[in-house]
């Protein structure tokens, strides 16, 4: 039998321990969910554009694309509108900023890192497409590891050792957290989300219809 004061001691100890867990957790969570200005970023990334990968930096209008490489709706968007969007990029008709978000989990981070590595090889658009075309059926299923991502890069013609090293080292893993934090500040709550000149497209009609998507871009000045 413990004494009454002994029980009280245990009770207070539990309160202190639980409070400690909560406080440490809160502090850790707030600190780790801030942009880290020392994170290594790909050359095409602009801090001013929410750490997005910027294609055609001097063109107008501006199209922001928020995606997660494991998100099925993003895959559908890429298949429906990616062809036209990639044409717009290739013809320098708009500044397009990609924000690879990673809230679906670890393999989203690895895929976003690989896409960033591809950006350094000027192969972002091809890698972006290849990632969606080869999206695994299940989230975080173990398919997207370094080896598979390097092979995917090779399949779109990236043969350099620097790409392989970048994927294997996870060079831009910390950068993906910056993208996540800045996407949060931009109030992006689902993927895909597309902004044209800072204004969100109509999710209900323009995302899934290539004609309406094209018309929305044309209305913003994409000729």
């Amino acid at each position, binding site marked *: 039998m413990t004494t*009454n004061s002994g*029980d*009280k001691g*245990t*009770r207070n100890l*539990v*309160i202190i321990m*639980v*409070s400690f*867990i*909560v406080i440490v*957790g*809160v502090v850790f*969570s*707030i600190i*780790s*969910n801030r942009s880290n200005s020392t994170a290594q970023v790909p050359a095409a990334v602009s801090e001013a554009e929410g750490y997005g990968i910027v294609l055609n930096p001097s063109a107008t209008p501006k199209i922001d694309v928020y995606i997660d490489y494991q998100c099925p709706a993003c895959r559908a968007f890429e298949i429906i509108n990616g062809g036209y969007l990639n044409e717009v990029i290739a013809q320098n008709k708009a500044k397009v900023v990609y924000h690879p*978000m*990673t*809230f679906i*989990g670890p393999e989203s981070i690895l895929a976003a890192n690989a896409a960033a590595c591809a950006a350094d090889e000027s192969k972002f658009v091809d890698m972006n497409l290849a990632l969606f075309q080869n999206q695994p059926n299940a989230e975080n299923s173990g398919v997207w590891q370094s080896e598979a991502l390097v092979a995917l890069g090779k399949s779109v013609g990236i043969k350099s050792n620097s790409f392989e090293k970048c994927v294997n080292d996870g060079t831009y893993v910390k950068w993906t957290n910056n993208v*996540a934090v800045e996407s*949060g*500040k931009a*109030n*992006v*709550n*689902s993927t895909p989300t597309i902004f044209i000149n800072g204004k969100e497209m109509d*999710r209900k009609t323009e995302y899934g219809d290539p004609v309406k998507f094209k018309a929305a871009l044309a209305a913003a000045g994409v000729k």
Partner: protein
Amino acid sequence: MLDKFNKYQPWLTLLARIILGGVLLVAGGLKVGNLQKSAMAVRAYELLPIPIANFLGYTLPWIEIGVGLLLILGVAVKINGVIGAFTMLVFIVAIAQAWARGLSIDCGCFGGGGSVDPEDTKYLSEIIRDLGLLLLGIYLYYYPKGRIALDK
């Protein structure tokens, strides 16, 4: 009748603690592993300024874990019952306003969250569940003394 209640009340308190505490612990535990998503879920309610919504998304799961643990262990049951009930009240208001405004979101109660297709919303069942938990919290405020607790 009252005698019967007096006899079973400590066990009912234990049960209420385990259910409310267990739900909070699981809900918090499922969210701490993906705080980006948790913050996204809070933002999707479109109720708070973005920085505050993000802050809440990062901190709320830890508070749920803390309150859940204390309820299960039977520590400071009265105050944690109130905190639990108040949290549920806030959730109910937030879900109800999202419903009334025609937003299509998942409550994000157990991870997940953010925008969903309109046909995938389940506001009513979420509100009923939280209402039940709210009542358990109120019960614990009035009857904090129960079995197998560190509180004496």
